[in-house]
């Protein structure tokens, strides 16, 4: 029997989805995706990790996925006036090769599905910049039925950049703060996400009613 949207939102169905990996996928698709939870990897210690953090801080590849209206602010950042390349920041069109995910403003319930999937496909250590008020508290959409209010309930966020919309200068300031954070070694959010995966998944599945994607996009 075909499922309807109503069926998927029942408490039992949600529980079943939380317990069984890839339960949202069809029977044919299930073997195609990973059904094992990702593992945490501890950072090195001392000078070596500091050196690697220096490299990470100076080579930030932004995932080129315009998630909201803030994505518009990324374009002037690349061109002559602000020129993010001089800070080692580059745009990368594939999540596999990127390390910074800029959530450009509001994340609707439709977008958050793609956000989660793209975030999980990135290889760690990966960093998230929440751009604009919408990622902090929903901003002007705080009471909207289809916009999430707090981004860090769904994926871990390293830096929030407040404003509606923040100008490219603010974005550059956020990137500089992120660099400082990476250099200080204070960015173990990839591990945090894996450790608290159940909590994040539960939150995501409460919002994304039609969960028809794999549980582990690693």
């Amino acid at each position, binding site marked *: 029997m075909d499922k309807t949207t109503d069926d998927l939102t029942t408490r039992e169905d949600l529980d079943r989805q939380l317990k069984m990996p890839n339960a949202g996928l069809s029977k044919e698709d299930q073997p195609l995706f990973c059904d094992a939870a990702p593992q945490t*990897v501890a950072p090195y210690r001392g000078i070596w990790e500091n*050196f*690697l953090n220096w490299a990470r801080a100076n080579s930030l590849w932004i995932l080129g996925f315009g998630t909201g209206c803030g994505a518009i602010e990324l374009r002037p950042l690349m061109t002559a006036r602000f*020129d993010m390349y001089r800070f*080692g920041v580059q745009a990368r*069109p*594939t999540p*596999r090769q990127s390390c910074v995910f800029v959530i450009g403003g509001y994340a609707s319930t439709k977008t958050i599905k793609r956000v989660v999937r793209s975030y999980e496909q990135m*290889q760690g*250590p990966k960093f998230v910049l929440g751009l604009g008020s919408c990622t902090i508290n929903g901003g002007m959409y705080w009471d909207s039925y289809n916009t999430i209010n707090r981004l860090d309930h769904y994926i871990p966020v390293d830096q929030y950049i407040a404003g509606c919309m923040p100008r490219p200068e603010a974005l550059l300031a956020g990137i500089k703060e992120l660099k400082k954070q990476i250099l200080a070694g204070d960015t173990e959010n990839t591990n945090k996400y894996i450790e608290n995966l159940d909590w994040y998944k539960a939150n995501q599945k409460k919002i994304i009613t039609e969960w028809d994607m794999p549980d582990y996009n690693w």
Partner: protein
Amino acid sequence: MIEKILLKGFYTLISLFVITNYGLLLMGSMARITARVQGRIGQPVWQPYIDIVKNNAKRWSISHGVMFYLGPVFRLAGGLGTYLFIPGILGSVVFANFSFSGDVILVLYFIFFGQLGMALGAGQSGHPYSPVGVSRGLAQMTAFEVPFTLAVIALASQYGTLSITEIAMAQQGGILNWSAFTNPLATIAGLFAFVGMSMHNPFSVVIAPQEIPIGPPTEYQSSMLGMLQTNRAIFNGAKLVLFVNLFYGGANNIFELVIKTFILYFINVFVGVSFPRFRIEQAIRFFLFVPTIIGLAAVLIQYI
């Protein structure tokens, strides 16, 4: 005997070290020059090094199977193979590499080999954009190999040899002895192929960053991507050294090599910032028309 082999191995490592660093610095400096053209400051010259360290420092890495792992390995083998059979500096023991008679045929093969290996690896990733990039890449490659091969045939018949060392040695004794002056048609055909080979504009649609993310290596990440980036530096260097040997009289010392290759690579940047991208069928039509006719003319002139 064993000392000789070890010494050769040591020299090869030095040669590889130099070409890798030179390739990386060249990429960094050219990115900066391109930025200047666009009115930007641009990334630091050493940015490619940082990117490679960062990619190798990723803690997580996913795989799509054995062939997926072997893709970058084949690609690196293609880059190394191309470089190691070209004499870097004429008369130098350290940079002589494994050049032998008939090596230009092997080098032609090695230029293709890496791409084919990469195509197999990228195909296993299962990402739909990979095959799109692969088909574009292989189609364009097949097209620019035609004028390049014709140029090589013209040179081989001109100098009566298939050895890169002998072709370069035959051009010694003054600037007018270079193939660029003795055989300008082959040089022009070769240069067209060179611009295509470097995949800068207008032939950059293979990795089209806007339409299909990055092309074949869409799914490659972490140390595999680091390996591909290292190969890019080696392969760039190898192509430049090959062209200097074939058309610009080779290099008798490292300064000559640096100056000649830098100017040669600058052609890419000059063309790249001046022209927009070709679609793939336009690129193929381009290569199979003017450069191929010039290449054919170069070959025919040798036999008249």
